[in-house]
Each structure stands twice: as structure tokens, then as C-alpha cells.
């Protein structure tokens, strides 16, 4: 078991000074929804506004120059973080926007690999977050293509047993999550992508739950596009990333039109700037991009491998502890093989909202509900689950508090 120096890390996060209900300390187990921000990220955003604020890529003054350098510097940090070329990094406002941008770019054209027609298939999975389901569902409706999906095994892993029939020459897009935000299971992207590429399909990976938690390298992942958000990886809200292969971005139609994304404009027509500018219409979320750059620097100074090892240790400890609780059912793998630090569970006779409410009395922040993965809830026959998710600022004592909190919840509702 290899753990980080959590006390030192926590000292960088002002939110942990906050007192929760009943003067309890904050036991934050909801990083799967959003992470907290270290002082370094808050300072980076503030410094952008106090020292360099200007609209990027416009203006000839010092501030415009500095703002552009800071924004493009952030792009470079992101590109190094995932092993990509800098021009392959598109900043969006969120991972949701990244995925919608992509889905709309497909229906904005009728030529090349992006053109879809009736008979074509878009393959997703039953464990997708709504953000990587609905854009494809709607793209299928707009183009007449058919949506197909991988199921989930009872253990909570992707059911790849039917991959040979699911991926065929009809398959044009495979959009799949890297790690389930509910089950924690990490999907075999490389294997799926290899298969998808033999039929010429494009592979889109929702990396929202992976990019913050373990090292990710697009040069070996074999995906064609990945999307992730800044706020789940210590960065600000309002900044997301879409990575795409340069050759594909060059062919792809823009989704949003306006300033910044053009090469030349007349009253009748316009041509587009090369990627990534083509996909970044309007003044972007500059301070947020800079904040994301600072967040990645923070993560890398600790090391993504160490962060992953830490989370595996926490997950292991939590899985063991939770399994000792009578009347608690875990959704997702019970070991840490290909599994991240997200644990969903249900308590007999106690609805997740009620559990979350009692846990809140002890300063424990968990997510309750369907986790924007309603089809997965239906598959497991529950209205919702309670989810604990871990990050670099959690330690074993947080899990002890959770386990005690669950016992107190069962006592409160007179379930033993």
C-alpha cells in the first residue's frame, strides 16, 4: 500500500478549513462529481485577472500578448499531459460541450468519415454518463443512423462478449467511457479501438473519470478523440478539453461559428482557421484554461502514478470495509483490477437520499441518485445509489468516517 502525504496536500486546499454541519470536518467523497481546487489554481486564475487580462489572439497591447501566451501555455501543458500535439487540444467549456461539439461536427457534413447515413451504427455502452450517451442518441436521430450498445455484466464490467457482432462494417463511431463514473470499472479501450479501427470506425473516449486519476497517453490509447473536464481534476469549472487526431480535426466541420475561428470572411461566405482555433469561436474561458494548466502542474508535481497508487490503496481499503457492513450492496467490481476510486452502493431499506442526508450530519459529502447514468440504474434495478469517490486529498481516516457514518445511518433508520 502506497499512500501520499495527505496532510501536506490538504494544506493546499482552503476548503478543508471549512466546518461542516455539527462542526464536523469535511470528509469529501464526491470528487467524481467535482474536485476541490488547490491554492495554486486559485492563484493562477486570480493572477490572470489581476496581471494579464485581455481577449486572447486580438489586440496589439502587452496584456493581449501576455493573455495569449498564458492561454496557449495552458494548451501546451494539457498537450504534454496526455502526450498529444499542441494543435490537437481544443478548449471547450466542459467535457459535455466537447462531446456535443464532436457529435454536431458529424452532422454538419455530408462527406468523408464524418458523414452518417441510415444503416450506419453508433456504438456506445450501457454504462455511459448521459453526456456520452445523449449526444450520440440525438446524432443517430438527426442522421438516421442506429444507436447500439455494449451491455454491462452483473459484476459491473463492460460486457464485451458480443463485440464481434457489435462492431461491424456498419459501425462508424464507438463512443465509450474510459472509467465508469458509477461502477469505477476501467474499460479496455485499446482492445475495443483496435477492433473498431479494423472496420474504419472512429473511437471517442470519455476520459472525465480517468484523466484526473491516472496517466493517460493518447499516443498509446489508440482512441481518435478524447474528452475530459477541468473541474474534476483540480481545475476551475468552465473549462473542458477535446483532443482529436490532427488529420481528423483538419477534416472536421466546426460546431460553433463566430469570431476567432475564421481565416477569412466576406458578406457571402467564410473560411476556417486551422484547428484548434476552428473549434474555439468567441473569447474563450481564458482564466479557466490557465487554472487548468496550474492544476495539471500540481498533479504532475505529485505524479499521476503516485496518485493512482494512492487511490487504489484507498479503494482497496474501502471495498474491504464496506463489505463487512450487513445490508450493503456494492455495484461494480469488488477488487481493484482495472478499477478506479469510485464506489457505488445501496443500503437495504434506506434510500440513497436519506443515507446522504444522514452522512451529511457527519460532514461526509457523497453523491446520491442516478449519477447521470439512468440506464445503468435501470439495469441494476435501483432508483439510485450512494457513491463515494476518492482523490489525492482523501486518506484512510475518511473511509473510517464513512463506514462509521453508514453504521449511524442504519441505526438512525432502525435497520440493523
Amino acid at each position, binding site marked *: 500500500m502506497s499512500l501520499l502525504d495527505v496532510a501536506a496536500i490538504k494544506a493546499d486546499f482552503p476548503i478543508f478549513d471549512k466546518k461542516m*454541519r*455539527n462542526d464536523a470536518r469535511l470528509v469529501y467523497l464526491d470528487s467524481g462529481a467535482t474536485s476541490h481546487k488547490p491554492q495554486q489554481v486559485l492563484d493562477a486564475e486570480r493572477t490572470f485577472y489581476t496581471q494579464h487580462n485581455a481577449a486572447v489572439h486580438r489586440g496589439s497591447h502587452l496584456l493581449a500578448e501576455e493573455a495569449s501566451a498564458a492561454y496557449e501555455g495552458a494548451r501546451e501543458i494539457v498537450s504534454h499531459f496526455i502526450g498529444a500535439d499542441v494543435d490537437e487540444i481544443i478548449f471547450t467549456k466542459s467535457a459535455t460541450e466537447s462531446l456535443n461539439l464532436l457529435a454536431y461536427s458529424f452532422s454538419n457534413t455530408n462527406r468523408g468519415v464524418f458523414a452518417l447515413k441510415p444503416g450506419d451504427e453508433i456504438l456506445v455502452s450501457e454504462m455511459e454518463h448521459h453526456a456520452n450517451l445523449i449526444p450520440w442518441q440525438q446524432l443517430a436521430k438527426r442522421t438516421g443512423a442506429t444507436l447500439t450498445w455494449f451491455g454491462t455484466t452483473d459484476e459491473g464490467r463492460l460486457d464485451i462478449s458480443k463485440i464481434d457482432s457489435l462492431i461491424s462494417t456498419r459501425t462508424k463511431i464507438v463512443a465509450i467511457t474510459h472509467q465508469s463514473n458509477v461502477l469505477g470499472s476501467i474499460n479496455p479501450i485499446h482492445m475495443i479501438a483496435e477492433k473498431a479501427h479494423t472496420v474504419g470506425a472512429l473511437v471517442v473516449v470519455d476520459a472525465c473519470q480517468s484523466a484526473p486519476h491516472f496517466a493517460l497517453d493518447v499516443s498509446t490509447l489508440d482512441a481518435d478523440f478524447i474528452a475530459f473536464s477541468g473541474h474534476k481534476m483540480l481545475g476551475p469549472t468552465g473549462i473542458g478539453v477535446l483532443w482529436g487526431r490532427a488529420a481528423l480535426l483538419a477534416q472536421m466541420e466546426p460546431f460553433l461559428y463566430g469570431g476567432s475561428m475564421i481565416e477569412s470572411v466576406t458578406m457571402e461566405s467564410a473560411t476556417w482557421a486551422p484547428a484548434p482555433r476552428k473549434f474555439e469561436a468567441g473569447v474563450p474561458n481564458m482564466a479557466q484554461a490557465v487554472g487548468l494548466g496550474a492544476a495539471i502542474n500540481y498533479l504532475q508535481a505529485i505524479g499521476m502514478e503516485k496518485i493512482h497508487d494512492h487511490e487504489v490503496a484507498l479503494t482497496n481499503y474501502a471495498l474491504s470495509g464496506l463489505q463487512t457492513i450487513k445490508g450493503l450492496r456494492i455495484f461494480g467490481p469488488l477488487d481493484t483490477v482495472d478499477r478506479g476510486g469510485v464506489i457505488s452502493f445501496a443500503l437495504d431499506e434506506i*434510500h*440513497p*437520499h*436519506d443515507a446522504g*442526508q*444522514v452522512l451529511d*450530519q457527519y460532514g461526509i459529502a457523497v453523491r*446520491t*441518485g*442516478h449519477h447521470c447514468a*439512468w440506464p445503468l*440504474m435501470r439495469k441494476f434495478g435501483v*432508483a*439510485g445509489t450512494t457513491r463515494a469517490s476518492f482523490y489525492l486529498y482523501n486518506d484512510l481516516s475518511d473511509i473510517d468516517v464513512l463506514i462509521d457514518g453508514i453504521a449511524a445511518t442504519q441505526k*438512525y*433508520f*432502525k435497520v440493523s
Partner: protein
Amino acid sequence: MELDSLYQEVILDHYKHPLHKGLSTEKTVQVHHVNPSCGDEITLNILLQDGVVSDVTWDGVGCSISQASVSMMSDLVHGKSLDEAFVIVDSFSELMSSKGSLQGDESLLEDAVALAGVSKFPARVKCALLGWMAFKDAAIQGRDGEKI
């Protein structure tokens, strides 16, 4: 504990032993409502006879607050005229939006005044209102249907 103002004993009683749960075969209107933020769902049947709510039955999944609330509601409006039922629903809606400033009119709301504490927990108000809004929807549809 602050929690006790939310989960009064009568709420937990209704949760464990809900009234009028299980859908009737005979109905004037059936509605299905969901709480999209948490996935809770309710199907509710009402039977109207000459402007009177002669039966309300329901089925659904949800937290203790939503289940207890619909249990109390269905018992309250049972046998009331539509006009009386709407007065009760409005009174409950007002209580839920009171942010803890109202106690609730016990003569009107009976057991449902126990839910007054919910109004101090903004994230839970929707839970408490789920069944009531389903009833109101069904009652309006039924009333308008009867007029035709």
C-alpha cells in the same frame, strides 16, 4: 440533532407502512411523475365521482420523505371534493416553500405538518412535493375531463 426536525417519527412510520400504495384497476386519470435530479418516480391513479376524489392509489420508488409525503397526501385527499383537495395541496405547497418559517395548519394538513422541517432542506423540498404535484396534475386533468 438537526436531522430530527427532518425525519419525525410519523414520517418514518408512513415510509415503512405507506397508505394507499398499490395501483387500483379503476381510475379516472393516471399520471406518472419523476424527479429528474434523483430518479424517483411515482405513478398515481385517481378516481373522481361527481367532483369528489373517491379513490387515490399510487406506486413508486423514492426516499423516505417522498414516500411518506405521498402516503400522507393520498390519505388526506381521499373522500374530499376537488375544491377541498386543491386547498390542501396549496397549503402544503406554501408550507414547503416557507424555508422553515411556517408550522403548517394541522387542521388542514394533519400528519403532513410533520414535513414542515423539510422546508429547511432545499434539496429535499422536491422530494416532498413529488406526490402532491402528481395528484394536482391528475386532479386538474380529471376535473377538466369531467367538465367536457
